């Protein structure tokens, strides 16, 4: 029974729970109250609403959907808001910041709700509208916002509201800032995104009319929030006034009333600091300390876009930044200065520092030995006498040092004079004179010499080394660096000192040996003068060290051609055996003479002589050729001795002789080829002995025109060849004789031969009798008309000689074949062949002539004579080109071919042919012949 009851109770509870749950799922709590306000300063909508009290009592967790709509446009904002209601019943609130000024147009809000447990949203509330100015009766167009300040990089939206019934025709920015706009409605829109500072943009809006009340104007400012002040710190210079300083940071682009405002406040006293901010390069603010010693100062900088804060907590006594020292003065000796100054705040214990600028520009710091409460001074030691120094002083708090003061004004002073220290470097030049010597003394300040003041004179004293007499003395002004004294031939001791207002330098001693002593001998002896060369911008001098020398001296003249020659000298230690002598006066092409002296106990002796050039230059002129001797194959040049003295710009090393035929390049035996500037090649002969005064060029060709030149050369080379000398080698007589032998004698022989031609001809080539002149034909019986005919029947031969016709034909055909094959070989031969054929055509066919001829065909004759004396050769043929001439000259080949053929035949055949071809005189052999 009991169990039954429990079971029923559970069932009942479950049913109740299920009913309640299904009821909750369908529960809705619509918005009962909705109110919307606007905050124009913040451009913000303030929305307030509520739901039924039962929801508050049930402390429901609820969701709200809020929508914002602009004018008649679509919804511009939707947001869901979850909240738990409480029993207090306070209305719900929500804010919305508009990106468009709320004045521009109407904004409406509606809300619906849903309990968390419920599945259903309530109905939307009615739109609650905040009217914009577009609905009001404005008298002129208006732009919103006006004079808004926006941060760089942000967007700005502006609207221009026209009067009712008007539309916005123009709405633009008078600025290079990019933007987009919308016009032609009652509300114009203009949006600029990500704006940057480009001045203050002016916004102009115009309705579709032009009257004064059709325009609206506005500006907006683009800027930056202020930076947090950099390097903010406070300090005091006098323990009476505090000054805080800081850097402003970046430009905010906001000026005038919008510029950054600074405010200082003190946290311990909870009060603002009574100071006026002054900003130029840095900002500063000063106020009186009063009795407060510990401060916590807060600096606030603020502009319309933001603010920054910096703080500084300090004890005034730890922030002492003293004023710079002033009124410096000094007490000094020749090596020390005591620097004094004034300090404005005498009750502050200070530690000071002096900075002294040395003459070389380097600075040296001197710290004060103790604190400077009453005696403000520093002793500056280690200074040079009679030297100007510049000093300045700064101080800092001795206790709780904060920072150094500014430097005081620089103060320049000069230490006192002191007697010169070190010695003068003295040298001399001795010139023999009547009854004695002139000694020119030179001096200069050695590296370790210190004038320690103003040199007012140089004191020169000299006395005999032996038998000391009363010293002689002269005083020379400070601008002198040499003097000349006369001494006799005894040894002398000379001293030179510099003097300033305080005293003398140590004397520099010099002993002049007696005129008969070593020095004199050495100076006059013929010490060999060695040549030296310039190198590395100087002239290298080396010498053989001498024992017991305490130093070496080299002297030379900077201007050896001038008088005085500017004598220079240099001292070297006893271990030195070479030195590179450099001088700004050294120039190429000038010979400098160096004397090296060894010095021992103030006595000097000449050691070596050197002479050389910084750089040798080519000779200034060519050797003067006095005589030229010509032969068939040689030419000999004689020139004056070439000077080798000091005026020359280099040491003479020898000569070069240049030879070349005028018409061609040179190639003479024993010469070197030398290419001239123009590219022609000449022969070059080198004479390495500068003393040489003559030279013979051999292997020339006789009867030839040559050009030649001679140049002296030094270590610096030689000058270019400008002028050649021209010579013509004579005609060689031996050659003439040879020529006579080879040409004239054969010519005479030929002439004699020609003169005796008839006899020779008769001997070698007897006259061939004309058949027509034969006596046989004188008989009338043999005449047929004008022609004389010898009938065989008329002759009774006594002897019969047979002509080998076959052999003749064979020979003829061979000749023609040879001609044909040659024709095939080359064009020249072709031409030759053609000419030959013509020749043959012209030579051999019978031509009508008044004379009657009987023709005998003899190849040996016809071929040769056709070239030489063919009476039928026409002028046209003779006037042909060289090729034809060569063809003509080539014709004897015809003949040679025959010989060649003969050479290929057996000796017997050749002999037979010769005999067959030989003419047989008809005088001797009557009526033996044939008509061709």
């Amino acid at each position, binding site marked *: 029974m009991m169990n039954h009851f429990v079971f029923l109770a559970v069932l009942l509870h479950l049913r109740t729970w299920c009913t309640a749950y299904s009821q909750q799922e369908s529960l809705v709590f619509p918005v009962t109250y909705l109110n919307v306000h606007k905050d124009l300063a913040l451009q913000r909508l303030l929305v307030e609403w509520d739901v039924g009290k039962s929801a508050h009592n049930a402390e429901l967790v609820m969701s709200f959907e809020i929508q914002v709509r602009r004018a008649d446009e679509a919804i511009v904002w939707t947001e869901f808001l979850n909240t738990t209601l409480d029993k207090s019943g306070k209305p719900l609130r929500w804010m919305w910041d508009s990106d468009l000024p709320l004045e521009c147009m109407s904004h409406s809000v509606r809300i619906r709700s849903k309990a968390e447990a419920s599945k259903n949203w309530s109905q939307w509330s009615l739109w609650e509208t905040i009217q914009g100015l577009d609905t009001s009766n404005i008298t002129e167009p208006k732009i919103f916002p006006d004079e808004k300040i926006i941060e760089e990089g942000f967007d700005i939206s502006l609207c221009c509201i026209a009067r009712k019934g008007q539309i916005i025709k123009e709405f633009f920015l008078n600025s290079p800032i990019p933007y987009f706009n919308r016009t032609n409605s009652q509300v114009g829109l203009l949006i600029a995104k990500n704006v940057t500072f480009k*001045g*203050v943009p002016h916004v102009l809006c115009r309705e579709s009319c032009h009257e004064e009340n059709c325009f609206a104007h*506005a500006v907006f400012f683009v800027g930056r929030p202020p930076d947090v002040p950099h390097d903010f710190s406070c300090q005091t210079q006098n323990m009476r006034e505090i000054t805080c300083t800081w850097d402003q940071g970046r430009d905010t*682009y906001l*000026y005038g009333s919008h510029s950054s405002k600074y405010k200082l406040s003190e946290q311990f006293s909870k009060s603002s600091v009574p100071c006026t901010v002054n900003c130029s390069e840095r900002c500063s603010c000063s106020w009186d300390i009063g009795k407060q010693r510990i401060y916590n100062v807060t600096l606030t900088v603020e502009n319309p876009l933001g603010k920054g804060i910096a703080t500084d907590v300090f004890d005034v006594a730890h922030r002492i930044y003293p004023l710079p020292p002033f009124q410096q003065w000094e007490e000094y000796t020749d090596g020390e200065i005591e620097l004094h100054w004034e300090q404005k705040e005498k009750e502050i214990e200070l530690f000071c520092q002096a900075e002294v600028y040395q003459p070389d520009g380097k600075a040296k710091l001197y710290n004060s030995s103790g604190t400077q409460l009453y005696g403000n001074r520093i002793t500056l030691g280690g200074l040079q006498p009679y030297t100007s120094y510049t000093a300045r002083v700064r101080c800092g708090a001795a206790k709780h040092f904060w920072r150094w003061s500014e430097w005081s004004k620089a103060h320049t002073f000069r230490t006192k004079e002191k007697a010169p220290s070190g010695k003068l470097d003295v040298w001399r030049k001795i010139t023999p004179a009547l009854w004695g010597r002139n000694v020119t003394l030179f001096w200069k300040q050695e590296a370790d010499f210190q004038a320690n003041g103003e040199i007012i004179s140089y004191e020169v004293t000299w006395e005999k080394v032996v038998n000391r007499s009363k010293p002689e003395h002269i005083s020379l002004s400070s601008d002198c660096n040499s003097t000349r004294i006369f001494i006799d031939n005894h040894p002398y001791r000379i001293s030179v000192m510099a003097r300033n207002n305080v005293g003398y330098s140590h004397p520099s001693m010099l002993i002049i040996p007696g005129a008969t002593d070593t020095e004199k001998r050495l100076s006059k002896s013929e010490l060999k003068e060695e040549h030296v060369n310039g190198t590395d911008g100087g002239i290298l001098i080396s010498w053989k060290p001498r024992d017991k020398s305490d130093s070496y001296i080299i002297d030379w003249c900077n201007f050896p051609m001038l008088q005085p020659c500017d004598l220079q000298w240099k001292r070297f230690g006893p271990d030195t055996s070479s030195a590179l002598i450099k001088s700004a006066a050294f120039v190429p092409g000038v010979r400098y003479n160096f004397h090296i002296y060894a010095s021992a106990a103030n006595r000097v002796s000449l050691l070596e002589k050197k002479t050389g050039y910084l750089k040798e230059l080519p000779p200034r002129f060519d050797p003067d050729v006095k005589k030229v001797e010509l032969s068939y194959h040689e030419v000999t040049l004689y020139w004056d001795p070439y000077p080798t003295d000091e005026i020359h710009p280099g040491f003479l090393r020898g000569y070069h002789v240049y030879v070349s035929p005028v018409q061609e390049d040179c190639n003479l035996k024993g010469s070197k080829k030398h290419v001239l500037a123009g590219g022609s090649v000449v022969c070059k002969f080198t004479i390495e002995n500068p003393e040489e005064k003559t030279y013979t060029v051999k292997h020339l060709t006789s009867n030839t025109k040559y050009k030649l030149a001679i140049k002296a050369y030094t270590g610096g080379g030689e000058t270019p060849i400008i002028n050649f000398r021209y010579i013509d080698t004579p005609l060689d007589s031996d050659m003439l004789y040879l020529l006579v032998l080879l040409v004239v004698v054969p010519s005479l022989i030929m002439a004699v031969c020609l003169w005796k031609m008839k006899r020779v001809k008769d001997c070698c080539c007897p006259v061939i009798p004309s058949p027509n002149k034969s006596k046989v034909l004188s008989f009338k019986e043999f005449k047929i008309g004008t022609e004389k005919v010898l009938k065989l029947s008329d002759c009774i031969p006594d002897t019969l000689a047979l002509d080998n016709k076959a052999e003749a034909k064979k020979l003829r055909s061979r000749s023609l074949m040879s001609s044909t094959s040659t024709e095939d070989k080359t064009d020249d031969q072709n031409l030759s062949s053609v000419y030959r054929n013509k020749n043959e055509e012209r030579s051999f066919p019978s031509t009508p002539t008044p004379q009657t001829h009987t023709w005998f065909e003899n190849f040996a004759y016809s071929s040769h004579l056709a070239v030489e004396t063919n009476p039928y050769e026409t002028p046209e043929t003779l006037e042909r080109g060289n090729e034809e001439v060569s063809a003509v000259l080539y014709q004897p080949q015809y003949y040679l071919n025959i010989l060649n053929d003969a050479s290929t035949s057996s000796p017997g055949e050749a002999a037979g042919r010769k005999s067959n071809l030989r003419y047989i005189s008809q005088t001797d052999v009557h009526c033996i012949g044939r008509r061709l």
Partner: protein
Amino acid sequence: MRLIPAGVVPFVALLLLQRRPVAGRALLGTGAACPTNGLCRANVQEQTRRQVALLNATAQDLFSLYLKCQGEPFSSESDRLCTPSGIFFPPFHVNRTTERKEVMVAMYKLFAFLNASLGNITRDQEELNPTAKELLDRLHNTTKTTRGLISNLTCLLCKHYNIFQVDVSYGESSKGKSAFKKKQQGCQVLRKYVQVIAQAARVLLPHLSPA
């Protein structure tokens, strides 16, 4: 114009009263009377003449540059926007025949007004056209010259007429006005300034020419 005899009215710093058209008395010297000596330098007349000539020579350029820097619509509609009819400007009804003393007093009033107005314009332009360096420089220079001119006129009035206090009216301050109104007011003042300075130069020169 009211001339105040020496030593009657105590000094009130009126040059700073610029919020509204204000009438005030500017004390010319530092005391209640003209100093007996050492007030004027020998070439003060010549210097005054040169200062007026300089202002006259530079006024038109200043106005043109001002318009250019304000942008539209000032650069294109200056005639409409800059008509000085609606603003206060001290009357300057003097001509060559006017007595020299009256000319000097009118001059003083004019340049005292201009000095204050140029101060306002400079301040507004520093805010509205901070990048227009040339305009700001010219405004500063013109203000400086005006200040020097006032000093010289003070000296001349004191020296020659024993006048050390003059009633001065200042224009309405632009502070608190919209940016457009500030620009417009500056434009109106400068336009009027161009007109009046030319007249002042014509009138003043004969009076300041060396005798």
